[in-house]
Structure formats: C-alpha cells, structure tokens
C-alpha cells in the first residue's frame, strides 16, 4: 500500500472512476455493427473498446455483402446503461461504421453460436456423452475409439450448459465462434 492508500495493481484511481462500480446494474447488450469491409476495420473497432476500457464478451466478424463492400460485426458487450449508450455513440461516429443496431433493446432477436467440443473417454462416460449430445441436438463430426468431436449450434447459454455437462465426462477442448445475431421479423 502506498501513502495514498491505493492497493497495488488497482485501477481505481483514474479521474473517470470515481463512481461506485456497484451503483448501477451491469447490462449485457448485443450490438450489430455494419462497417466498410476494408483492411484495418476490425482493429479500428476493437481498438475503440480497448482504448476506452469497454468490455468485449464475444465478437464475430465476416463480410456479408461482397458487392456492397460491407462486413457485419456482432459484438456482445457489458456495462452500465450509460456506458452502453456511450459505446454506441462512439461506434456511430466512426467513419467506417454505417449503422449500429442494439439488438437487445430494438425488439426480439435470434442469437446463435456454433461450438465444437472434443470429449475424451471410454466406457460409461463415453456413452453418457453421446446420449447428452442427442438431447442437445449436437452432431458427431469426428470420432475415434476414445474420443468424439461434437458440433452444436445454439444460444450462448445452451453452449455453456452443454460444456458444463461434458466437463466431468472428459471434455478436453472447446472452440466457439462467438454470437451471430439478427432481429426477428422483417
């Protein structure tokens, strides 16, 4: 502890961090950001998040319109309502950003994530893993005598739940794509 009573490693001494971090509820929002598909655009967007100390819970990006030269970034972020509003405003003012949609507040949306799970095991555990995979509608995409690779698509919560169930059954590796999301309806 220094003379100023700041704990070592604490970041609570910035001029912008005087507010009680628990004073406001932390919300999780899914943002769909339409950007020019050009080199450096992803660095630009994620650089904004790191420079201003915003959270990225999940991030996906891919070109969605080749002729229109557009990519779509889906970013799941969390923060107080004020921070979420600020993130949107900061994104919207970037030259490469065309549109920002907050799918969490703009009405119901569909959110999906693809995940691959490698589960190693023999005997009962292996049979149980297969049985649970059926319940979760996960496909077996690779198989050896002592392992499976399951493929599953679902909400992040469903992916989490499946991973939890697989853990005691020999889960050795997980790969997740991050969330892709669209608003419901047309």
């Amino acid at each position, binding site marked *: 502890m220094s003379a100023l009573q700041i704990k070592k490693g604490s970041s609570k001494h910035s001029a912008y961090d005087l507010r009680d971090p628990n004073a406001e509820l932390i919300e999780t929002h899914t943002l769909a950001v339409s950007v020019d598909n050009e080199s450096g655009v992803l660095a630009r967007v994620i650089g904004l998040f790191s420079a201003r100390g915003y959270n990225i819970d999940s991030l996906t990006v891919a070109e969605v319109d080749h002729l229109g030269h557009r990519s779509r970034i889906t970013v799941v972020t969390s923060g107080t309502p004020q921070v979420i509003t600020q993130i949107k405003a900061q994104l919207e*003012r970037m030259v490469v950003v065309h549109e920002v949609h907050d799918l969490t507040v703009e009405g119901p949306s569909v959110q999906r994530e693809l995940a691959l799970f490698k589960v190693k095991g023999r005997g009962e555990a292996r049979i149980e893993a297969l049985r649970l995979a059926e319940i979760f509608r996960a496909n077996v995409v690779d198989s050896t005598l002592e392992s499976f690779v399951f493929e599953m698509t679902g909400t992040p919560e469903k992916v989490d739940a499946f991973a939890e169930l697989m853990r005691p059954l020999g889960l050795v590796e997980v790969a997740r794509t991050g969330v892709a999301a669209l608003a419901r309806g047309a």
Partner: protein
Amino acid sequence: MTRQMTGAKMVIQALKDQGVEVVFGYPGGAVLPIYDEVFQQNDIRHILVRHEQGAIHAAEGYARSTGKPGVVLVTSGPGATNVVTGIVDALMDSIPIVVLSGQVPTFMIGSDAFQEGDTVGITRPCTKMNWLVKETDKLAETIHQAFHVATSGRPGPVLVDIPKDVQFATGTYCEKPKAKTDHYAPRVKGDPEMITKLVELMETAERPVFYTGGGVINSGPGASHLLREWVEATGFPVTSTLMGLGAYPASGKSWLGMLGMHGTYQANWAMHDCDLMINIGARFDDRITGRINAFSPDSKKAHIDIDPSSINKVIHTDVPIVGDVGHVLEDALKIWKSRGRKVNREAIARWWKQIEEWKAVNCLAYKPSATSIRPQHAIARLEALTKGMDRYITTEVGQHQMWAAQYLGFEDPNRWMTSGGLGTMGYGLPASVGVQIAHPDALVINVAGEASWLMNMQEMGTAMQYRAPVKQFILNNERLGMVRQWQELLHGERYSSSWSESLPDFVKLADAFGCKGIRCDNEADLDDAIREMLAYDGPVIFDCLVEKHENCFPMIPSGNAHNQMLLGEAETQGVIGASGAVLV
C-alpha cells in the same frame, strides 16, 4: 476527360484543388517523389521545419487561426512517429489536420525495411480516420476524402500513408467533385423539439449561465456572432473553457472570465449555483467539472454538441442537442424570438446582483513585489501594451498558459491558440510560426515558460528562415512551475526534478539564431522592454525573469467542487486529500 499523372503529381494537384496554400513538412527518402513535385511548382508554399513535431504544431496554429485545415508532409518511419504527439493534440482539441506521410514501397511493407513503421497502425487510435493507399488510382480520391473527414462534423486529424511506389506510378486523377464523400455526413441541424425545450427553459430560468467551448470557434465566425447576439439579447452571463476564449469578447458586459480549475471565482460559482446551464460546444472536461458528483447540483443542463458521443459521456444532460453550434444557435434564436423574446428579467437582475458580489472578491488580484517581476504582472502589462493591436496569442503549457488565459482579453475568435486537451509542452513556438505564416502582418506572440519553450526551440530556425517575426515572451522562473506548484500542494514540498538547471542564456541564444534577444528582470524596465519587443521587425526571444515560487490561483484542487476554490497561498494547507491526490 480523365487525367493521367504520377501519384506524386496527384498529391500536389489534390492539394491545389482543396485550396491548400501552405504545407508544413520535412523531407526524407519515402517522400522524395512528392518533394520533387513541390519543387516544380509555385502554387503551394512549403515551410521547412526543423523537427516533424514542429510541422504539425505549426499546422495546428495555422488551422486554429484561419479555420482552414492544416497540412503536414512527412516521411515514413521516424517522420511519421514524430508527428504522433501533434496528431493526438489535434484529436483532443478538434483541429482539422491532414497529414500526408511517405511509406516504404508496397512490396517492402512488412519486411522491416529501412525507415519502415506501421504508420496507419500507430495512428489508428489517434486520427479521425487514416488510410494506407496501395494503388495510385485511389490516391487522389483518398486525399479528397481525407480533407472531407478532417473538416466535417467535429473536426480532427486524418492521415494518408503513401508508399513510394504509389508516388512513382501513373494513374487516373479523381477530380474533387467526383470523390465519394457522402458516406460521412454528420448531422448539423439540431432537433427542433429539443431546441424548443431549451428555449422554454431559458424563458423561465432564474439563474442561467452560458458555458461555451471550442465548438463555438470551430463552427466558424458566424457562430460567435450568433452567440454574442443571444447573450446581449438575453442578458445571461457567459463563461468559457480555455478552448473557447474569444467567442464572446472579454470586454463584453456579460463576461465572467474563464471557468474551471484555474477559472475565475465568479465563473465557477455561477456554474455551481446556476439553475440552467447551457453548454455550447464544450465537453464537460475534468478541468471544468471538478468533482463530478458535486458538479452544479441544482441545475438543468442543456448541451449543444456536434459529436453525439460527447453527450452524457461525463455529465447527465437534460436537454441534449446534437448539431453544429452555428446551425443550432440560428434555429434557437429564431424560435426564441418568435415566442416573444421572453426571459425572467427580474430574476436575472437578482442573479447578476449575486454575481457582482462574487466579482467583488477580485480573484485575479495579486500582491505586487518590490524585488521581482510577478508573472501575472508581466502578462497584464503585455495585455495593456498590445490592446487593440491585430494580435494572435499562442502558449506553451503550464502556469504561464493559465495566467495568459486569465490576464489576456480576447475580443475575437481564432486569436488564441493553446494546447488544451492534451497539454502539449512545446506546442507554442511552432504554433506561433504557423500562425505568423497565415497572418504575415499580424502581431504573433507566444506566451511561454522556459521549460516548455526549450522542448521545440529548434523552430526558431524556421521562424528565421521564413522571416516570421514571432515574439517569444518567456516567463522564466527556472522551474517547471505547474509541476512545482502541485509538488508544493500535494507532495510535501519535495521538488522532484522540477527545476530548470543549466538553462541557456536566452539572449545569446537569440544571437545565435540571428534574432533579437531581450532580458528583463525588474518591473521598472518591463514596459520599455515589451515596447522594444513589439517594435522590433523580426523574431524576438524575450527572457522575462519572474518570481520563482509564484503559484497560479484561483485553483480548484483535484477532487473538489466549484465552490471549494482556493484563492491564495493562505488556503493551501492540506487541501487535497488522498482521493484528490490520485487524480490528474
């Protein structure tokens, strides 16, 4: 008709089409083709600086004093990295700057070539937008887009990185009107409903205050004009941030002086006690707000800003108006007039009575000294002796900067160039050169501290080469004055590395550069010495030896509120607690 030309020629053509008259720069291997084209024409003047940081600060001075974008031309690697400080400075203070940097040829990018640096990577977080141009055919359009982005919406710096092979190759020139720029079109008109809401609040407000900022200056002279009209018509008091000085004249009857950490007593108390705060083009910077949860607790707040991300960033706003200050003021004034020009005259008169009481505290008074020159006095004399002249002021960063803001009066916009957001020591001298290049016949003074001034003193060479008669008015206290002040208040008077030892003899230094040097160390000679500086037809380095341990007041200590100002030495004991000390 399509025009074919080399990339290097395109750069010059695009600058001409953008109306550029002056470029500040420094040559190097990766921009030689462009410099070859610079050599072969006479429309664009190139100012050779002595260090690339000097180029960008000069361009900032040029931009702030003219309202036009400043243009910088530098080479790859170190040329580009040396302008990074100025790019961040321009980003923080919303100054339109176009940096053109050379880059190693496209086929060598990524090979750690000589003088290669990832310029777009390095400058990505500190530009509004930057581009690496890989094809000559896209070069002209990109430069046109760069000017559009730098000057549209909230102005700021942009950078175009141009590999050497792109400069040599031939391509098709894109004429300015054909460049695609419509994808970036920030909104300039404010929401009429919100503007009406602001007008309604103004009609009934009992203790209103206009809090104006650099956005008024950036919006152009028309915005300052409208602001003045509105202030006069309503009789509301007006204060300004450091960046906004000159938008409302210091001689105006509604002027409260600057607000904030070193602002006036009346301005800060008015901000604290007001019931309606009208923020016009300012951003609730931490130098302005002091402790956020004690900031103007009883007021409704309206905020006019062209940048939506400025709204509700720090302070909750009741009436957010996104738009250009000039456009919004025009509409607001129209609506206010059409509703019968109403204000609560009786309450406003009471409010002014209160403000007069605060003014009577006379917060900028300072004790005269028998033995040394008070720095405040030096600035006050500079003000008195240059009053009414066609005067432009730049500053470095520190105590002298705050004293300049307090004791100089600005009657017009674009006359005050200072590094506000980033607080860049070494800004003032090159900026003064840039201002003088833009206004050759005006009086340009850099109010400096000796420590800041030394950071870019090589630019005296530029001033000499281009016969820019800039006056360097150095308040020399042989200290890093503001650092010393904070160490006195916060760190038990342990003056760690905050004195200037081994200073050069500034008069001899002036001699070495070939300009005039003047030294003054007593108040009796001060006026004559200043007159001598003003009368000299050429650059002057004025070494004004001032009181070494003077502190800058008023001061809102970090972590305190507007109504907890310190007015002088007697009040400084133990004023900053541990939680305040950790703030910047």
